[in-house]
């Protein structure tokens, strides 16, 4: 078993940012399933006037790269508008972590999907149009 993670992955795994839940969140999204060994839940607090994500928290069941991807993704969307956050790709999450081992790339996909789910949850609650999402194969 090779654990060739970058230092950034290890840093976000050992000290993950934005762990937890938000009481009365404006949007919640979940991706993955326990069968595959990964499940990620994202909570958003969005400013209704500016549409800026003021707070974001996550809870993740999964391996080190899943936890690091969640941590990094929440950092990347915090302070961004919901439109900017939508454009966050899994590749950007992986890149910000200085790369993930190929077999672990699906962890970054999970982060992108969970954020999309949370943003659509927000849009639905606020009468905005839901953006169709393409689900990646597990």
């Amino acid at each position, binding site marked *: *078993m090779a*654990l060739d993670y970058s230092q950034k992955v290890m840093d976000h795994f050992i000290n993950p940012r934005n762990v937890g839940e938000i009481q009365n969140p404006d949007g919640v999204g979940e991706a993955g399933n*326990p069968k*595959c*060994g990964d*499940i*990620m839940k994202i909570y958003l607090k969005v400013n209704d006037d500016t549409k800026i994500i003021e707070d974001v928290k996550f809870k993740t069941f999964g391996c*080190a790269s899943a936890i690091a991807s969640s941590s990094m993704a929440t950092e990347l969307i915090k302070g961004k508008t919901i439109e900017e956050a939508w454009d966050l790709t899994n590749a950007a999450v992986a890149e910000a972590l200085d790369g993930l081992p190929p077999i672990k790339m699906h962890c970054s996909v999970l982060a992108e999907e969970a954020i999309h789910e949370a943003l659509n949850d927000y849009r639905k609650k606020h009468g905005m149009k839901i953006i169709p999402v393409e689900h990646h194969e597990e």
Partner: protein
Amino acid sequence: MFVYMDHTATTPTSPEVLNAMMPYFSENFGNPSSVYSFSRKSRAAIEKARAQVANALNADTSEIYFTGSGTEADNWALKGTLEKAKIAGKNHLITTKIEHHAILHTAEYLHKVEGVDVTYLPVDSEGFVKVEDVENAITDKTALVSVMFANNEVGTIEPIAEIGALCRAKKIPFHTDAVQAAAHLNIDVKAMNIDMLSMSAHKMYGPKGVGALFLRKGMRPENFVHGGAQEKGHRASTENIAGIVGFGEAMEILKSRLDDDLKINSARRDKLISGILAKIPHAKLNGATGDKRLPNNINFSFIGVEGETLLLDLDAKGISASTGSACSSESLDPSHVLLALGLKHEMAHGSLRFTIGRLTDDSQIDYVLDVLPEIVSRRREMSPLWEDYLKSKGEK
């Protein structure tokens, strides 16, 4: 603190074993197949090692064949037996769902390439194969029964003597993969009616790259490695003399201290198991208990957490352990053994295995019990599954 608790993966070559091996690299390097007197030393060394291994199993010296690994011994036993049986029109192999990949992938190969019918016997929730399941699976086409002596992941010890007696009565060859068991248990191939048995030196403080297949007199699987006339013409390749010498030495030392080790390891194992159960809520022990479990194996599932995260957290504390989680492997499936025991996927993903041995002392057991509860609880706190689980139990 360096705490090595992965003795099932491999063990360090002991200093005594290494000492015994050293003369057979640069000094007594002669090819045992050569005629001149210098090579006699190499031949004699191999024969001494053969006797050391045979004695430990209550086998005859002529029944031990050295191989390059335990995996090779498994390949030889299965492929060689099924190939030979084909001539007699027998093409059925009985094995179990919890075998090591050395057996499972060989069985899959035989099915795919040779058209062998393979029965994979189920196990119960503790990992035991039922002897009556073996009996019921036997047909007039059955060429071989192969059941592992003890499982490498959860430590369950199978009813080998009973299966051996059954197979002997039915006149069906019986092979057992004893790669783990031989490092911890007293094995008597005669009393247990074992026809073929695979072993590996590096699991018992010997060197890597050497194993053995016990073939009871009369057992003649087709050769697996073809070439020269080494091992009485049954396993070609110039002998790994130093490795073989190390294997023999390791086995003799192991046998001399086996009963003491069994007691010490079992006590430490049970201390670690009961400590984890007492300190970590909702921890599930995987496998059997007491003398039906390998004395060095501790395997738990912690609902809500994934195994790889625990391994990395433990590694940061200097502890080396292992997991059945998919995230630690090249595939995305969790351990086939834990699934065969009936564990849900998320529980199989959350498994953690400690295997103790000669590098273990009591203070290390205390240390693991000190650091593990906090690691598990911290990771559970960040897991949505743990939250759901507590809600389902009405604890939140």
